């Protein structure tokens, strides 16, 4: 019954979120489409003359009204391109030939962990021109672990520049040379998926491990593209990037949620880089200190604790919705690990979660992971389900072997799809080979019987401590997200620019020149 409640609440949250963002975009222009104050973005000594056709851009003129360059905003010329959390708007100044001379980063919503290197990274594009061969792909040294954001920057600049040069400068931009770069993510992801599916359907743990290693190396280390709650928050806020600009956003979404709908929590067993870390740590710790014999989590504790991740998921999404910011949903420890950026509390959380993972199998995944909660909720509706066929002899071995306590029932074991991570241990253990993936035909699930035992103090303590760390990290993220200041530009700056331009004109006609005065200060407002 609980799962239905959670699914319902999730659906409501999604509906509210999408409704709000749809209403917002229809009603009033968002920050991005509102008039950006141009004055602080243009070089000194020039004025900006606005034009609307064929695109919205500005001509930059000097005092003699000679053309000195152009200015456009990337989110107006290439609105479909976004990073992890929405478009990354930039103001680009060009010289009369179309070469980029200056790029200013405007407000953006990328996480601080991804976006710290953005302002410097953007400067590398100065000098890019529509006719010179664009240096994309391997030549551009992207921000470590933040390929998504950096690709968004490169794509926005690319697209807006070529659109501008085609429509305004009437030049054909040089053809892109890095088309192979686009196929790379899809190829690799397909390989990972095939490995995972092979490991699943043939119950081959080598393939599963290979898929985990591959995912760790590619999705973890190489691209830091891991499925996380932030992507759901993106959907809530309608910041959905195009596949061409941000392939990994779509790839991780399809891999995680698509496989959940079809076979169940395959992502959790075979495609999650953090899963690899946890299992690798267990293997290493067992080799180093075999005397560590972690007490298994009692079914009662497990049953009580496993709702934690659903509550966490819903709480994070609600907070993101309320604060209208995706930052509170970006607190997962695997993000801290693979982007190497995080507050000290976030690192403590990561360390503690990994430590608990050594003692309690998949501690994070079973009790705390909001991404796992989401895949779990979807897995309950999966096409395929792990079922016990008629060959089952009710020996109960699978139930005892299941490392995540997902199997229950005495007569015929039933697998709770929301918790089952498709690790295949039950299939391996079953002496009759009775467990296999079958297309879901009936709804005969039994709820696992919660035994009334006293909760394990150590386990409960570890759980509560991790939850409190999570709360601390979330609160800090909320606080930081409210602090994150977009470069603030006074709203009526253009009005003032117009007025001061008039004043300067007046002095010009009087034959007087303005010379900067010494010994003055701004007068405090009365």
């Amino acid at each position, binding site marked *: 019954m609980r799962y239905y409640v959670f699914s319902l609440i999730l659906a409501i949250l999604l509906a509210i979120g999408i409704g709000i963002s749809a209403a917002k975009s229809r009603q009033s222009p968002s920050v991005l489409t509102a008039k950006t104050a141009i004055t602080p973005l243009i070089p000194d000594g020039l004025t900006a003359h606005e034009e609307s056709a064929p695109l919205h851009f500005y001509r930059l003129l000097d005092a003699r009204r000679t053309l000195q360059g152009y200015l456009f905003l990337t989110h107006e010329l290439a609105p479909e391109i976004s990073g992890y959390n929405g478009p990354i708007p930039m103001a680009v100044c060009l010289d009369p030939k179309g070469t980029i001379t200056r790029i200013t980063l405007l407000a953006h919503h990328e996480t601080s962990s991804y976006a710290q290197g953005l302002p410097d990274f953007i400067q590398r594009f100065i000098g890019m021109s529509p006719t010179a061969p664009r240096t994309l792909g391997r030549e551009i040294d992207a921000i470590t672990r933040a390929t998504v954001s950096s690709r968004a920057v490169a794509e926005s600049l690319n697209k807006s520049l070529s659109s501008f040069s085609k429509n305004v400068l009437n030049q054909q931009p040089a053809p892109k040379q890095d088309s192979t770069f686009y196929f790379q993510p899809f190829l690799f992801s397909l390989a990972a998926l095939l490995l995972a599916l092979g490991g699943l359907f043939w119950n081959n743990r080598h393939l599963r491990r290979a898929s985990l290693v591959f995912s760790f190396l590619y999705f973890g280390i190489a691209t830091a593209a891991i499925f996380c709650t932030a992507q759901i928050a993106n959907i809530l806020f309608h910041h959905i990037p195009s596949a061409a600009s941000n392939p990994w956003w779509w790839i991780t979404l399809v891999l995680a949620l698509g496989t959940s709908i079809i076979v169940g929590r395959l992502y959790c067993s075979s495609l999650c880089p953090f899963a690899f870390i946890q299992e690798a740590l267990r293997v290493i710790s067992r080799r180093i200190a075999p005397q560590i014999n972690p007490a298994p989590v009692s079914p009662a504790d497990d049953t009580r604790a496993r709702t934690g991740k659903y509550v966490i998921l819903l709480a994070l999404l609600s907070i993101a919705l309320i604060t209208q910011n995706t930052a509170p949903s970006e607190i997962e420890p695997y993000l801290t690990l693979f982007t190497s950026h995080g507050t000290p509390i976030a690192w403590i959380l990561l360390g503690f979660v990994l430590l608990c993972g050594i003692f309690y199998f998949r501690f994070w995944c079973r009790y705390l992971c909001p991404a796992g909660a989401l895949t779990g909720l979807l897995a309950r509706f999966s096409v395929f389900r792990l079922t016990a066929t008629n060959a089952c002899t009710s020996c109960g071995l699978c139930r005892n072997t299941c490392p995540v306590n997902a199997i229950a029932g005495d007569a015929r074991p039933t697998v709770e799809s929301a918790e089952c991570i498709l690790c295949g241990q039950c299939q391996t253990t079953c002496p009759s080979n009775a467990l296999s993936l079958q297309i879901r035909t009936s709804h005969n699930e039994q709820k696992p019987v919660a035994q009334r035992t006293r909760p394990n103090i150590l386990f409960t303590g570890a759980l509560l401590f991790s939850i409190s760390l999570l709360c601390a990290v979330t609160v800090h993220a909320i606080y930081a997200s409210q602090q994150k200041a977009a470069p603030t530009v006074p709203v009526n700056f253009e009005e*003032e*620019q117009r*007025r*001061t331009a008039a*004043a*300067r004109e007046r*002095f010009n006609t*009087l*034959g*007087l*020149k*303005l*010379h*900067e*005065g*010494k*010994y*003055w*200060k*701004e*007068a405090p*407002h009365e």
Partner: protein
Amino acid sequence: MNKVECLLCPRHCRIPEGGRGNCRVRTNVGGKLFSLVYGNPCAVHVDPIEKKPFFHILPSSTALSIATAGCNLHCQYCQNWEISQRPPEETRNMPLAPQEVVDAALMHGCRSIAYTYSDPVVFYEYTYDTSCLARDKGLLNLLVTAGYIEQDPLVDLCQAVHAANLDIKGITETFYRAMSDATLQPVLDTAVTMKKMNVWLEITNLIVPTWNDRDEDIRTLCRWIRDYCGRDTPLHFSRFWPMHKLLHLPPTPEETLTRAWDIAKAEGLRFVYVGNIPGHQGNNTFCPSCQTLLVERKGYEVLKNNISNGSCSTCGAGIPGLWK
């Protein structure tokens, strides 16, 4: 848009966007303060240095005198009101960059540049830049000012200024307020600061009948100068001519000026002069020790100069001033 507060003179004008300061030549554009007269003087003349009046500096030499429009005082008797009580758009200006000023001075054989007529305080940036260039070229910088300026800009400017003629117009606050719409104390502070910065100071006082011609006032003024600027500070009493807003008053009688001259000498000031009265003994410089006539002047012309190497040729006493 923001107002700016000008910190150049004690008025501290709070100038709104597009507005001007009290001096008419400083304006607020876009929240920044600008000077409207930089490099744009409305008066450029070659004058004898005695006209400024400077009697103890480079006698018989000429000074290139420049001024722009505007002034931060509004004296009712202003002799130069046509440029000082006007905004720069109403005066005939000519573009003359600081370097061009220096070149012009050298070309005309001037040995100094005088910032005069209106008031160098209001064209401060122009004065500052030109003085720095002039000093490097060996020219002397002479300020002829009412001294209504804040201390910080004054100290900065005085580093490039060799001599100043300060107008202490009266010795009471009421006089300054009524006559010039200003206050007295900043002017006195300017005198003291200039002395401290080793600027050669000569004081001018214009005696206006019925305004500041009482004996007590003159005596107070002389005592102040003697105590705070030193007995060697030359004091010039000038004659008033009806001008601007005081057209109903008579010119200062000669007796009044002579009386002031006597009072000043009685108070111990060594070099007292009377201007605007040709033939008066007050035009000449006498040695404070032996009373011999050192420099004889007729109007602005030097007839005789008996100062050799800065000392009296008779008794050898040192005569303060910049003679070379």
